[in-house]
């Protein structure tokens, strides 16, 4: 059986990939830093950055571990709910709110990871989807989430008591800093010995086991890391949108992150970022089309799977023989 990602073939020159990636990373950072002076709507970019971090966390699992989680929204949404609740009801400081949110989704990652990694492949996807639906129903009935209404009007407050998050420009740079930190952490992870083992599991799990690796430990660790980082994205989203709602835990959101990563390029470093900006733009500009957005998303899925499984960044990288 072929492996899931056609982007997994290594490049010819061993030192070139790192150079390409770092160069691209610097360009990306420069572009993002310049956003406030470009006249782009900062809330749109912030929203896209949260989605991008979420998708990068998801890509860590699918692109490098070969694990397709179809319930990843639950980590985004859990951190969102906990952070929003902590900020609004317990009136904690923003940094503590983020820590609590990330801790909650990490803990949930431990529990769901332990259950889900008991099966491989397609079953793993079905199990993560079913578990996310279980958590969704719990949130639907739990009083603190306020059901269909969600947690509205969450105060943004002052980060470390002096960074005023109610100022959109300040908030933008905080979101950007968190995104870059999360992105860098993922980049380091996939290029570490841990990442190499993860890739070997994706390519051939029985062989990795026969080499003496406890693959379940690696998969669980990747799952927890991914859940925690998805939680970080969810916590930041609360500061941007000032609310937490059921949409962020529903399976449609889980499908969306799959779409973002697939469109950008599974197993590419920058694919999820590109995908997130495209999907965020699509939602922004096509919002008036109502249900047709779903149809368009479905069509993108079908086209991606049938014609370009490498995704946008994967195709570009393949064409220019670069690593992106």
């Amino acid at each position, binding site marked *: 059986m072929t492996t899931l990602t056609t982007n997994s073939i290594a490049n010819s020159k061993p030192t070139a990939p790192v150079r390409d990636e770092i160069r691209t990373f610097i360009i990306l950072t420069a572009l993002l830093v310049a956003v406030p002076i470009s006249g782009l709507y900062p809330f749109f970019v912030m929203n896209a950055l949260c989605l991008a971090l979420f998708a990068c966390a998801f890509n860590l699992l699918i692109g490098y571990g070969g694990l397709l989680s179809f319930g990843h929204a639950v980590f985004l949404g859990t951190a969102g709910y906990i952070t929003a609740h902590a900020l609004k009801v317990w009136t904690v400081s923003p940094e503590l709110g983020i820590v609590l949110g990330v801790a909650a989704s990490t803990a949930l990652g431990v529990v769901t990871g332990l259950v889900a990694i008991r099966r491989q492949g397609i079953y793993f996807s079905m199990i993560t989807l079913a578990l996310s639906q279980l958590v969704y129903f719990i949130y639907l009935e739990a009083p603190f989430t306020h059901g269909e209404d969600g947690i509205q009007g969450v105060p943004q407050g002052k980060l470390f008591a002096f960074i005023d998050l109610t100022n959109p420009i300040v908030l933008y740079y905080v979101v950007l800093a968190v995104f870059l930190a999360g992105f860098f952490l993922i980049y380091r992870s996939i290029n570490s010995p841990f990442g190499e083992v993860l890739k070997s599991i994706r390519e051939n799990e029985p062989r990795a086991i026969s080499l003496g690796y406890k693959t379940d430990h690696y998969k669980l660790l990747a799952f927890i890391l991914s859940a925690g980082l998805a939680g970080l994205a969810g916590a930041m989203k609360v500061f941007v949108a000032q609310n937490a709602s059921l949409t962020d835990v529903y399976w449609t959101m889980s499908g969306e992150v799959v779409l973002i990563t697939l469109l950008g390029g599974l197993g590419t470093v920058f694919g999820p970022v590109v995908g997130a900006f495209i999907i965020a733009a699509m939602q922004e500009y096509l919002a008036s089309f109502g249900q047709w957005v779903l149809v368009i998303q*479905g069509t993108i899925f*079908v086209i991606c799977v*049938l014609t370009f*499984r490498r995704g946008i960044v994967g195709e570009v990288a393949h064409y220019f023989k670069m690593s992106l």
Partner: protein
Amino acid sequence: MQALYAQLLVGLINGSFYALLSLGLAIIFGMLNIINFAHGALYMMGAFCAYFLLSVGGLSYWWALVLAPIVVGLFGILLERTMLQRLAGLDHLYGLLLTFGIALILQGVFQNYFGSSGLPYAIPDLLTGGVNLGFMYLPIYRGWVVIFSLAVCVATWFVIERTKFGAYLRAATENPTLVRAFGINVPRMIALTYGLGVGLAALAGVLSAPINQVRPLMGADLIIVVFAVVVIGGMGSIMGSIITGFTLGVIEGLTKYLYPEASNTVVFVLMVLVLLVKPTGLTGRAA
């Protein structure tokens, strides 16, 4: 006690749908190595088909019972020929992604034209009313759904386990290349299998139309429960899928009576328990 029996009946009905849908998923997975995420959307199309046949064509429920699975089955064959077929040899997960996309398209189109609210579909005259069984009042239509679904499940089991076509099918599931070498048209069989699995989903949709109303998203949440059912039962055995489907429906009904708050989640909780005790599922082989 009346309430208990009523909930058990509801559970049996849901169990019928779980059984019909998970049966179709299992057959399709066996042959195509694809988890058909579009199954819920095709179930919905079955119900809509019945609705159109009645409102536009004036054809009764009984016609729908025959025609809807054929129409949706043919549509499924078209999907298989034009798209799913191209995924042969690729990772299973691509099949999941492709059929997820198809489900989004189908549900989006129907939602766009029919909104999210339900369209009513009347119970056929012959099956209206109910009988008093002494210990409970049984609406005839609901009894019919359970018995008819059971009959269809057993018939499907018979076709696959006891007929020549079924033997070919099972052989092609094990080793398609070898079966092809015997001169059997395996690609056509794959398309027919997909049509059969999808037809079962459409049949479940027709059966559910008078009970649950006809809604574009009627299959969206249902399919996730059916995935859990499939994880619990495993996809290795046809009879296993049928029994697991009905049993979980009944357990869900029982939960509705004993502890209603958990009725939405009980199947998922059971899935977790089964995974902890027996990761391969109750009847499944290791995947």
